[in-house]
């Protein structure tokens, strides 16, 4: 095999054993490659110096004790994991259940919208003032952007084809739908603080759900 100095870095990156052998041979006549090759090898030798596989006499005892305590303690269940039965429900029933939630959210949202309190005299009480509104909208944009980043982090995990992730995906769909409804209403009535609180609650639920998804990854 004919090797030139130009091939050196490519071989360092992903050379086959034959190419490495050829590079060794080439280094026999090329001082520059010989030096580079030697320095490259030295890094691996130096890395071996960072291997210290000594036992810690008390470490396992501590781990074992913690594992026993955790095993004996009642499992900590989050709201969503406590809905474990969800995984065992037929997909058709899951869809029906999700549909019912969407309808319930739509009805409650429209009820809240039509029965919203509109204080006529004290706009500072329930309605947001212009400066406060701008502040709320700016914060909301930042919060949405942060949640979008969280969603991007969670998306590989969400894409996995497991029943648990399918449940999370459905829950997120419901939340996104509710958020979209509320945003439309908030857009029509931007000064209504009540709608903003509802929207915030939905965002928080979405954030929590995404965090739960990321937690399962660990």
């Amino acid at each position, binding site marked *: 095999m004919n090797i030139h100095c130009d091939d050196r870095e490519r071989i360092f990156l992903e050379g086959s054993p034959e190419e490495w052998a050829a590079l060794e041979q080439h280094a026999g006549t090329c001082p520059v490659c010989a030096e580079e090759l030697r320095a490259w090898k030295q890094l691996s030798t*130096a890395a071996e110096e960072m291997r*210290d596989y000594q036992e810690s006499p008390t470490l396992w005892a501590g781990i074992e004790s913690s*594992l026993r305590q955790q095993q004996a303690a009642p499992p900590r269940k989050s709201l969503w994991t406590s809905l474990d039965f969800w995984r065992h429900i037929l997909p058709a029933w899951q869809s029906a259940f999700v549909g019912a939630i969407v309808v319930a959210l739509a009805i409650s949202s429209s009820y809240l919208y039509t029965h919203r309190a509109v204080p006529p005299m004290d706009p500072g009480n329930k309605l947001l003032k212009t400066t406060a509104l701008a502040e709320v909208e700016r914060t909301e944009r930042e919060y949405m952007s942060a949640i979008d980043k969280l969603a991007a982090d969670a998306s590989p995990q969400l894409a996995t084809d497991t029943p648990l992730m399918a449940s999370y995906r459905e829950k997120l769909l419901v939340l996104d739908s509710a958020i979209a409804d509320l945003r439309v209403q908030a857009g029509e009535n931007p000064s209504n603080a009540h709608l903003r609180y509802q929207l915030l609650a939905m965002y928080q639920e979405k954030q929590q759900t995404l965090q739960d998804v990321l937690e399962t990854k660990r």
Partner: protein
Amino acid sequence: MGSVGLTLPWEHKLSSVARDGERRVEPFEGKTEPVRTSEELSQDAVVAAACLSGNLQGYERLYQWQGTRMKNLARNLLGSQADAEDAVQETFLKIQRSISGFRGQSSFVTWTFRILVNTCHDLRRSRVRRKDKVNQDVDALPPRMELRAPGAHPSLRMALERALGRLTAHQRDVFLLYEVEGFRHAEIAGMLEISETASKNTLFQAKKNLRTMLEPPRSSATGGAQ
């Protein structure tokens, strides 16, 4: 002595005698990446099954098999023995909490080390946060290495430790997993959730950077390049 600052004492003649159980993997030594034997693969499955059954002996087997390696990686990532032991303990607790979620898509060891690496990063972030350094990019902060028992080439190791502290966290992770712990690129890809090619490229970049950092000054390098 021709070494200055971070310069590796390149002129040292180094022994490349491998210790028991070590699998150094450079092709230039006539070897390819370490291949997992069927014995290792079956041990992986046995330990995973034992842990899945909830039997603490399964965790003990995992510890006996990989405990010192886990502690070594944690120590190199965190810089202190005490932090490393905390990280290993926390990793075992996380494994126990989430073992039901292990689907066997990667090997059990890969899954374990993925949890360990994430735990080390979380631990570093929380320790740095506690020190009110919130404005800094904590992943970019190098681990502060504490003293440890001297090996055959303590100055070489110290120079490398300091240089590793100047790599990005990602490059440091890949270098330690590949060069120190002897994992394959496919395994590292599974642990860090990157592609195998990305793992190779990151290692290459890490070694290039280390090479530059540890290169002896040209003026004093005359004796070191033979």
